[in-house]
Structure formats: C-alpha cells, structure tokens
C-alpha cells in the first residue's frame, strides 16, 4: 500500500506534516528526533516502556465482546478495546509514559503540556509525579471553568496549572501558550504533547507510543477468532492519537478503517469539530494539515460536546490517510454520541468517555450494514467518569 514511505526524511506525510515553528526551537526538534530514534532502537528502553505500561498502567487492556449491545443493534458483532481500563482512565497515559521516559533519558527535569478537557493534563501530571519531574500544564480559562475536577486532580498530583487567557481561551490557545513557553525554556524543558499533532517528530513519536493499542488488539482478536483479522476497525479522532495507535498495525493490511470526528450540532452548522469533513489545508501548531479556518486563514473555534474532540486541527498522518482514502472519516453528532453512550451503559454496564461514544455511535451504524458473522473492533479510548457532570446537565436541560 501507499503508506509505507511516510513520514519521509523531512517529516512529511505526502504534503502534510513538517516543522512550522520559530527558529529558536528548531534545534530542540532535531535533538528530540535524534533522541527518539535512538531510544526506539534501544532494547532496554523498549523493555522499560513495555514494563511500565504493564505494571503501572495495567496493560494489556482487554478486548471485550459487546454481546448484548451487538444483539440488540443487529448486524456485525462489536468488540471493545478497553483503553478506559488504563490507569487514569484513557489511552492518553500510554503516550505520557513514553514521552516521560524519553524526557528522563534526555536528562530533562521539567515538562510542560497543554490540555483541553484535562485528560492529557492529568496523564502528564501523573507521569511527572511518578518520574520526579516538575510539570506545568497550560489550560484555557474557559476549559478550567468547565473541567474543575480535572484541574483539582492535576493540582493534587503536584502539577502547576497555568490559566491561558489569550485567544478563545480553549485547547488551541493552550497549545499556542505551551509552545510559547517551550520557545522560552527550550534548553531545559521537554514539551510533552498530548496528541498525534504538532511539528515533526511529534506525530511519529505519539503514534509509536500509542501503537500498543493496535498491536494488542490484533493479537487478541486473532486469538479469539482463530487467526482472522477484524472486518472493520473504528476509533474517534480529536488530534488523532488513539486512532493512529489503533490503526497502526492494520494500515498495511486489508482491514477497513474508520475515523470518527465530532459533528457537534451538525456539520452543516457552524458548531462542529469535523476537521477532515469540513476543513482545508493550513498550518496549525507547527504542522501542515487540515484545519477549520476562515477563507483568510484565521483559525476558527470548533465545537463538540466532548472536550477531547474539540480541536480545530488534526494530526498530519490522518490528513494523509484521508487524502489517500486509506481511512474513511465520518462525523457523528452530539446527539448520536449521547445516544450511543446510553446504549453502551445500559447493555454492557460500561460508561465510556463522550469522545469514545462517537466511535461507538458510528460502529452501531456500520454494524447494521454488515453481516452477522462479521466483526467490528472499536477503540473505547476512555471512561466516562469525567463526563458525568456534562451528562447530568444534558439530562436536566433537555429531552
């Protein structure tokens, strides 16, 4: 397939990717690339990473067959890759552990991170505590208000949460601010990015640390289904880290892949986060990719009920997989996601994250178009405890 050669040696996925950053941090990206390439060639580093995933985060996470949900929905049967059972409740910790171990290996004592909903912020604060690093988390003022619980968690973990008041005071501005801080403190600070976005080598590195999701899935599925591969694999896409990790081993194989974006109130409205369906080529946070913007190039504010999908850009590899049509990207509305979340709760006793509910919602549609003896694997990227407040507001406010 066409994807074998990406990224090229300039950090390009087709036209996407690259390093669009101020000159001051170019050396740090080179240094990071060298350190990362050395680390992943090093058996000791890999063993350490695998061990930490096992004994700290509780991997491997199970692959659970959703019997009652599949039965009541009809069509193909649905399997859930249980990233919600990770330490801290989402796939974000895989990447945070990987990057923190790399930071330690590079002798960096300070990490900085951006966060929207606070999931990556909590993961970063967690690994900082575990590996004895100082941690600053940049978070938009608006998100601090919406996600008070996660702010408190980060502080409990010893991180400093820095309120970002620039721009629209959400994730994109928090990311700008983290990059600004990195430019200022680049000589002793490691920027622990939270998704498969940013300047090269970040998209490659985040994929590497998240691909454990896909490789575990492949071997677990083969064991259950006597060596077969799934008939479809589905994951939600914010910046794209759980999806690219899940897709990694299947990209070169004959398995249909689906990425699910947030359609918010509908892709035909102004309130969505459907970057690939509605965006155009541009540069955001150091990378050439698809993004939501005005015709003049001002980046617009996305919307989704799930804070983790509420991002105006997307990782460059997804932009590439979209362009080459290797992955099909679909969008699911708030309402469809909420409905799927409830169905999963009621039929399987699993409260998933609102982000993950987008993937579940699309799988339910897809399953109906497939045969009873076919199988879909969904990446259940996180648990829904963090969303209980949003769900309560929704229940009380509407219906």
């Amino acid at each position, binding site marked *: 397939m066409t994807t074998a050669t990406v990224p090229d040696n*300039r950090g390009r996925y087709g036209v996407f990717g*690259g*390093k*669009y*950053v*101020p*000159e*001051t*941090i*170019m*050396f*740090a990206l080179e240094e990071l690339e060298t350190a990362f390439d050395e680390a992943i060639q090093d058996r000791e580093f890999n063993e350490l990473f695998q061990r930490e995933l096992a004994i700290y985060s509780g991997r491997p996470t199970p692959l659970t067959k959703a019997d009652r949900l599949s039965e009541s929905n009809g069509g193909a049967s649905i399997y859930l890759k249980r990233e919600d059972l990770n330490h801290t409740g989402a796939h974000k910790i895989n990447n945070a552990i990987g990057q923190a171990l790399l930071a330690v290996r590079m002798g960096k004592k300070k990490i900085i991170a951006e966060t929207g909903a606070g999931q990556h912020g909590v993961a970063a604060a967690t690994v900082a505590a575990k590996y004895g690093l100082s941690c600053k988390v940049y978070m938009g003022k608006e998100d601090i208000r919406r996600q008070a619980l996660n702010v408190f968690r980060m502080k409990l973990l010893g991180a400093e949460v820095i309120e970002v008041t*620039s*721009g629209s005071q959400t994730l*994109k*501005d928090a990311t*700008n601010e983290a*990059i*600004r801080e990195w*430019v*200022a*403190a*680049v*000589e002793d600070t490691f920027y622990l990015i939270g998704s498969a976005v940013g300047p090269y080598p970040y998209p490659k590195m985040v994929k590497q640390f998240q691909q454990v999701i896909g490789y575990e899935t492949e071997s677990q599925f083969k064991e259950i289904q006597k060596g077969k591969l799934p008939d479809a694999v589905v994951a939600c896409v914010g910046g794209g880290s759980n999806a690219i990790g899940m897709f990694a081993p299947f990209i070169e194989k004959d398995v249909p892949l689906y990425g699910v974006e947030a359609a918010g109130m509908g892709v035909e409205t102004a309130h969505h986060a459907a970057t690939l369906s509605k965006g155009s*080529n*541009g*540069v*955001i*946070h*150091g990378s050439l990719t698809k993004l939501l*913007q005005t*015709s*003049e*190039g*001002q*980046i*617009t504010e996305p919307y989704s009920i799930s804070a983790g999908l509420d991002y105006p850009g997307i990782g460059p590899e997804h932009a590439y997989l979209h362009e080459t049509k290797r992955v099909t990207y679909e969008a699911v509305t708030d309402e469809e996601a909420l409905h799927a979340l409830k169905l999963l709760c009621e039929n399987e006793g699993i409260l998933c994250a609102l982000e993950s509910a987008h993937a579940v919602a699309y799988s339910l549609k897809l399953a109906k178009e497939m045969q009873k003896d076919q199988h879909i694997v969904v990446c259940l990227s996180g648990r829904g405890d963090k969303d209980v407040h949003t769900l309560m507001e929704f229940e009380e406010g509407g219906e």
Partner: protein
Amino acid sequence: MNKRWEVFQHSSDYRFTPYIMAGDPCEEATIELSLALEQCGAHALELGVPYSDPLADGPVIQRAGMRGLAQNMNLEKTVKLVSKLRERGLKIPVIIFTYYNLLLQLGENRFLKLAEDSGVDGVLVPDLPYEESGYLQKMCSEHNLALISLVSPTTREEKLVRLSSEAEGFLYCISSLGVTGIRSEFRAGLDDFLKAAKQNCRVPVLVGFGLSTREQIQQFDGSSDGFIVGSAIVKKIEELESDLLTNREEAIKTFKSYIESLLPVYSR
C-alpha cells in the same frame, strides 16, 4: 536589491526598525503612525498582520492583533495598505510580518505579485524556518522581495553561517529565547552571538525581541548594525488607542515624542 534597500544598507546610522500592527487601532492610524516613525528616523518598517494564533508573539502583540482583527484587517489589506503608504510618501523599506497560514490561504504566488506591485520590500514569516522555506525563498527572489531570516542564540553554528551568508535585506538576530515582549534582561553571551552572525553577513545585522529603552538599545550599538523595537511601541499605541481614533493629531505628537525618547541620541 531595490533602491530602498540600497539606502537602508548604505546608511551609516545605527538602524532603527520599528514594528507595528496593521489596523491597530484603525487603518488610517497605521498610515499616520508609519509616516511618523519615518519622520522620527526609522530606517525600515515591519508591518504585522493580525492573526488568530500568533505563536511567536507575547501578550502585547497578541492584543494588537485582536484589535487589528476587530478592524477586519487581513493580509491582502495589509499589502494594499503599503501602496497607500507609498502614495503618502513613505520611502523606507517595508517588511510584511505574517504567519505562514495567512500566506497559504491568500496563496503564495498571489501574495508575492500583490506585494511586488504594492511597494513591499520584504517578508518575514516567524513560523517558517529555513528548512521549510525553499519555495517561498525562490519565489521571493523572482518578485524582488527579501525573505528576512531570523537567527536565534540556539541556532546551530553551521546553520548560522549559512543563514547569515545568504541573508537578504537584513539579518534578524533574536536577542533572547521566548516570544516577543518587553524584557528587562538579555541573554548572557549575546555579543558573541551577534559577532558570529556578523562575520559572514553581507547585509546589516539587526538585534530584536525585548528592547524597550534607550539604554538597552545603546548597549548593542557596538555589536550590531541596527535594532528592532516591537512590543514597546505597540504598547504605546495601545495606551494611545482612544486618542488615535478620535484625536489623532494630538496622539501622533505624543507618539513621536515617545519614539524620540527611545532612540539613541546620535541616531536622530
């Protein structure tokens, strides 16, 4: 190299290059501020373009960008503003300071043609490092525009040699790590960095980022050929915002005396 750059390069002064944001607080104010800066002795002018996500800028310039955005200023209008500046008699080189996404959306070729026709002399793209700038570099030379290179104290030696020897217009040396903004202290070893930058450079070497007082500016006189002041001037414009909108003549007077207080005594 055009006439305006020639004058700039042959000047024996310690060259003053101010930065202001287009459309802050309104288009006419930008025109009059630019002319005032030239009258105060500016050797070149950097004109910023408002952007939603200016990741190389600190709070002062971010706020100026928001004010510019509120005026619906954009890249195309900023370039066209330069032809108005030329009509009003501005003679110094003008450099458009724009983030890359704005250039991409207008279209690099369209921008360059428009810039050439409007009397623009240079382009500075803070988020387009040398490694990504090949195409724009080539196109800029075809349109007689200087693509201004930025070098930082963290730039590796071989790269510094290459960038300084290939620089056009002027070489922009960043005085400190971090984003634009007013600073009270500069990086140790800055003189050595400036010296290294000058060694291979055929064009003037300018120091910028953080300069806000006459004392700070004078401190770099020996080691560089000129200086850039952005945030301090933009902050002054912010203070004068309401007068610049309603009582412009008075505001421009105050602005000029501020600029004079900033400049090294000998550069006037």
